[in-house]
């Protein structure tokens, strides 16, 4: 038995291609999820009745069922009713719908921690509800949401690895393919893990930099001081 660890540099270009797919997938689902999540959070904070209940049901459903099951429904289930996606698109849709539910909760928490007195003050100036949200609530909420949002980014980057199961050649998928031919499981997956870790660390630091960059004195998650 060969006890030596071997790493073939010829694997690296293919692994890098996989990493790019992983990052595209994560980026697309996070962006879509942020847009949808923001709308869901606004619906949950500012509306009552059917819109509120729909948004709440959405959040409960996608947070209460496994991402892998959601992916299977979308990629293998939906073709039964005539809706068929490429594997990459299925991945983006499933992960985007899923992260939207989580991001909605982060946005909701941040919006609700903006002091309600400021909303009153904005209305007293004659701002419409929409202007109040745009100029007063969101600029604060988006700053407050950065820390939980960076966690979500890290989760999605890592969980995106499940898409290899529907045949996407992401970092995990490429690792699986090469290892199945070379039988260098240990070496390959250590390298794959390191590549995930490197991206996670870089993005975490980038978001911490952004958080400091947009920091405002006195703006904390409770919105109160002293």
């Amino acid at each position, binding site marked *: 038995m060969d006890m030596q660890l071997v790493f073939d540099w010829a694997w690296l270009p293919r692994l890098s291609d996989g990493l790019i797919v992983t990052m595209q997938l994560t980026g697309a689902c996070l962006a879509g999820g942020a847009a949808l999540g923001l709308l869901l959070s606004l619906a949950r904070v500012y509306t009552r009745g059917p819109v509120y209940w729909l948004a709440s049901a959405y959040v409960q459903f996608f947070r209460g069922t496994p991402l892998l099951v959601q992916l299977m429904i979308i990629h293998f289930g939906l073709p039964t009713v005539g809706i068929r996606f490429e594997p990459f698109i299925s991945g983006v849709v499933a992960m985007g719908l899923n992260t939207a539910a989580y991001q909605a909760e982060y946005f909701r928490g941040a919006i609700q921690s903006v*002091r309600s*007195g400021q909303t009153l003050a*904005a*209305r007293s100036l004659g701002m419409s509800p929409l202007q109040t949200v745009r100029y007063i609530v969101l600029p604060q909420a988006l700053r407050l949401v950065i820390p939980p949002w960076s966690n979500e980014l890290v989760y999605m980057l890592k969980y995106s690895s499940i898409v290899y199961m529907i045949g996407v050649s992401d970092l995990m998928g490429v690792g699986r393919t090469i290892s199945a031919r070379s039988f260098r499981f240990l070496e390959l997956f250590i390298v794959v893990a390191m590549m995930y870790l490197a991206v996670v660390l870089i993005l975490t630091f980038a978001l911490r930099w952004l958080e400091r960059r947009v920091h405002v004195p006195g703006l904390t998650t409770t919105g109160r001081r002293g």
Partner: protein
Amino acid sequence: MNSDSADHLLRVEDVHKRYGREEVLRGVSFTMERADTKVIIGASGTGKSTLLRCINKLTDPDQGRVWLENQEITGRRAPVNRIRSQMGFVFQDFNLFTHLPALDNVRIGPQRVKGIRRREATTLAQEALATVGLKEKAQSYPAQLSGGQQQRVAIARALAMSPKLMLFDEPTSALDPELIGEVLEVMVKLAKEGMTMLVVSHEMGFARTVADEIIFMEGGVILEQAPPESMFRNPQHKRTGEFLRKISDLYGESE
């Protein structure tokens, strides 16, 4: 509409407001003329703050009507935001926008609500800050200002909209005693310059200096309304006299 409503700057007619079982306002009516300063006093829970909020419709009155000049804010299709933008509101706990420096707090109203160009809005904001004596704090965030300074920025924020009427809801109640004076000083100055002001406050010194009239509220109605000297010397109701004595013991009658 009533033809005489245009003659008054503000006209409040039979305003009622109920929270659950409790009727906080039980039919309040009064008028204000240009450059009037009126101070509303009364025990807590008698509907003073609710009345102020019904006037600019931050709270919806259940019944009754409110006119600013000839515009009825309580009308069914009233342009509420536009009428509201003509009334400044100063809150007990300042409610400055945390994420904006003082200058931006003051500028955002003229710029976003009135659509004034950024450069002119900046000038307006600087002037308003100068009026409250805080020109040099333009770049400070609310968290970097004392309570008194925050409240003065809040007054400047309302002033920058060139309001026809300023509503003050206990503007000094949340302040440490040594910071009250600087806020009252600004308010006295505004009153003397002819701003129309409706002030909920227990600062009797302020009321005596600038108020044309004191409005005494009790149990959701106006019990008595009179110029400060006559109300102090010769209250018409027993309750008014009792309240004035109590409040004078607590706050001191003079500055």
